């Protein structure tokens, strides 16, 4: 009995001791944790101080006076002029770079590609681009219209049911396919619409008067097609791949490096130099 009582006492002592120890350990943990947090805070403050110092140093080195001096010496940027601001999205959309009539106008580059053209038998002579860029643009625009016309004819031909003149029936092969960065000409839109209309009417088992109208239209198309021929004859056509390649190269050269382009480049450079000199 007494033994149990003593054991109880010891047990109590042990429990209390264990509790105290746990409490102590926990407080020790807390203290360590707190110390770490403090150390971290201290280092944060230190780093903040360093950032502040570096920021200030950066600010001091890149002060307005210094930037301006650098600009005056090396970069020579100037504030944008009033004319360089656009009033809105509409103006941005209609922005076309340099004005066409301006002194420094150089036509935008026209990219072209050619497809095979077996029946074209014109000589592979390259027409010398005597006139500078504007002429080239005009030329390519007419080419584009012509090409569209022939394409329209090609669309119509398969849907055609009524007999028409053999001249129109002959589906023209794609003579020249031109990809151009030029604005879509009005003619092209008109032609496309017409073509759609015509296809529809043709599907509707066309009535005679309509057919007559179509025939008239097709006659016009055919007339245009002949002009395609004529134009493509003027273009560097090629029976041999080598000659065609040469022609293409020559065309690229004439676009990039003909005397007119060079003169334009030089003039631009001179103007820039002048404005810098001021």
């Amino acid at each position: 009995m007494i033994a149990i009582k003593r054991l109880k006492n010891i047990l109590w002592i042990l429990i209390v001791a264990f509790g105290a120890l746990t409490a102590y350990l926990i407080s020790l943990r807390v203290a360590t944790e707190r110390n770490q947090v403090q150390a971290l805070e201290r280092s944060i403050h230190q780093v903040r101080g360093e950032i502040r110092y570096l920021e200030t140093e950066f600010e001091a080195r890149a002060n307005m006076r210094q930037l301006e001096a650098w600009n005056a010496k090396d970069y020579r940027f100037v504030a944008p002029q009033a004319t360089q601001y656009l009033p809105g999205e509409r103006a941005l959309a209609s922005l076309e770079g340099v004005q066409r009539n301006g002194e420094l106008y150089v036509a935008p580059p026209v990219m072209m590609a050619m497809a095979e053209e077996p029946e074209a038998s014109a000589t592979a002579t390259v027409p010398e681009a005597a006139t500078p860029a504007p002429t080239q643009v005009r030329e390519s625009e007419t080419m584009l219209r012509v090409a569209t016309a022939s394409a329209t004819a090609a669309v119509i031909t398969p849907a055609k049911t009524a007999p028409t003149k053999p001249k129109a029936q002959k589906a023209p092969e794609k003579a020249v396919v031109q990809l151009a960065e030029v604005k879509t000409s009005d003619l092209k839109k008109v032609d496309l619409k017409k073509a759609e209309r015509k296809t529809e009417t043709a599907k509707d088992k066309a009535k005679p008067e309509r057919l007559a109208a179509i025939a008239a239209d097709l006659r016009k198309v055919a007339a245009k097609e002949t002009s395609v021929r004529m134009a493509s004859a003027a273009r560097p056509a090629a029976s041999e791949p080598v000659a065609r390649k040469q022609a293409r190269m020559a065309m690229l050269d004439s676009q990039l490096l003909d005397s007119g382009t060079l003169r334009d480049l030089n003039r631009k450079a001179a103007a820039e130099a002048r404005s810098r000199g001021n």
Partner: protein
Amino acid sequence: MATVLVRPAETDGPAQRFDLTAVAHKRLVVLLLLFAATTGVLSCRMLWLGIFGGTAETAPSARGAIPLRADILDRNGEPLVRTIDAYSIAVRPPLVRGDPEILGEQLHEIFPDTPAAKFTKLLRSKKRWAYLRHRALPEEVAAVNRLGEVGIEYPREKERLYPQRTLAAHALGFASMDDRGRLMGMGVERAFNDRLIDPAMRGNPLVLSLDTRVQGVMESELYQGLSSQSAAGAAGLVLDANTGEVIAMASLPVFDPNKLDNRTTEARRNVIVQSNYELGSTFKPISIAAAMDAGVVTSMTKRYDATAPIAVAGFRIHDDHSMGRWITVPEILIHSSNIGTARIADELGVERLQSAYRKLGFDQRSDIELRERAGTLWPSDWGRLTNMTVSFGHGIAVTPLHLACAYAALVNGGIWRPATMLKVREDQVPKGRRVFSAETSARMRQLLRLIVLNGTGRNADAKGYRVGGKTGSAEKPHQGGYAKHSLVTTFAAAFPMDNPRYIVLVMMDEPKGNKETYGLRQAAWNAAPVVRRFIERAAPMLGVFPETRDVDVSELTAQLGHGEAKD
């Protein structure tokens, strides 16, 4: 045999013994209490520390981040003044091992602006400790460190640094103590000294209304104008017309608040608030607006006699370029006619012109926070002649800031507001006081735009930015009279005129004129082009973009006759 019986002495042994135990008990209890109390006190203290100790300990380290003096930022948060731990280089002469001569030469190579002899002298001195250099750059410290001298040390000190150097130096200023411990200095640093060192506030930077970029543009354009016209000085001010915030405040010549020395004392004058000038023709729009408000000028078609000089009290008021005919109000402003303005002022009378000028604060110091602001020269004897001359800006002297505030009231709808150096939140804009009616203000906007389109301000017309303004040239007072050849030319402008947002004021002090200005020394040729170039560069930064629409002045152009514009 006799037996002697001695009564045994009464022994109180057991009682004594009992007492001793009691005493021992008592003592033990006292001791126990003592231990208990000590333990209690200690545990209480521990508890206290455990609960509150943590926060008490972390507080000082957090406080370490708060600068001793608050930073100053511009309206976009760009730092203008900061307190940093700067390096300085010091020497303990007794510890120096190397040869002072050689060390002096080496130090001179690193710091070319200090002579080698001075370094040698410091290295040889009998002092225990001396500064070699304040505010050294880190790479300079590294270079000195590479010399390997043990006697040189690099203490870090709290320094006030102005990263933009001379930029806005007059507005920012500096604070210092004189010998008797009084606060000296100038600018924002002095005016807000208490706020900057207040422990409760110094954690938050002070945000000014200045815009660093605009200030930079203003100073650079002023400097170009100053050097091309070999002027003695120049000043520029940009004011928000609707809130009174100072966006840029520049005064040339400049000084560097990082390096204050006695040589820069003259340059420390902030012309915008510290100097008052007779600002000349720039007063004309104000006088005419007052007359319009008072109902004296009822119509823009009303004509005034400008055929001959007016003779009043033995003084003749004449025009530099006489029109020789009767002219309308738009013509008076476009040709800057003294005679016309004087006639209107005469009709307006002393009382009403005075009250208008008083409402604009021309009779007292400006309301800006800066401490160095100057008073005005208000005519002591305001008679009929004074009334006439004052109407075109002669015989009254105010600071450029006064004029800018008046122009703000002139164009913003007629409300005068005090100028401030602090950024104003939208809901904190001061109510101000009404000086002109809204209709008068609208008419003045047209007239000021007209002056720039057709009159003396043509050189200030930044295309697309709808600038309006008025030129003014005045002779500087000199030995009791006027110095005919030392002019102060001013251009006070506002833009965009369809809804004025900013007032720009540029002043050139004694411009000499050059080839570009055809040798002319008038505001139209000196100050106006500076305003144009400034607006072209700074307006997009201020959120004003060029537009094709403009103020409709067609009804006023109809009133114009033909004739040459003058200043």
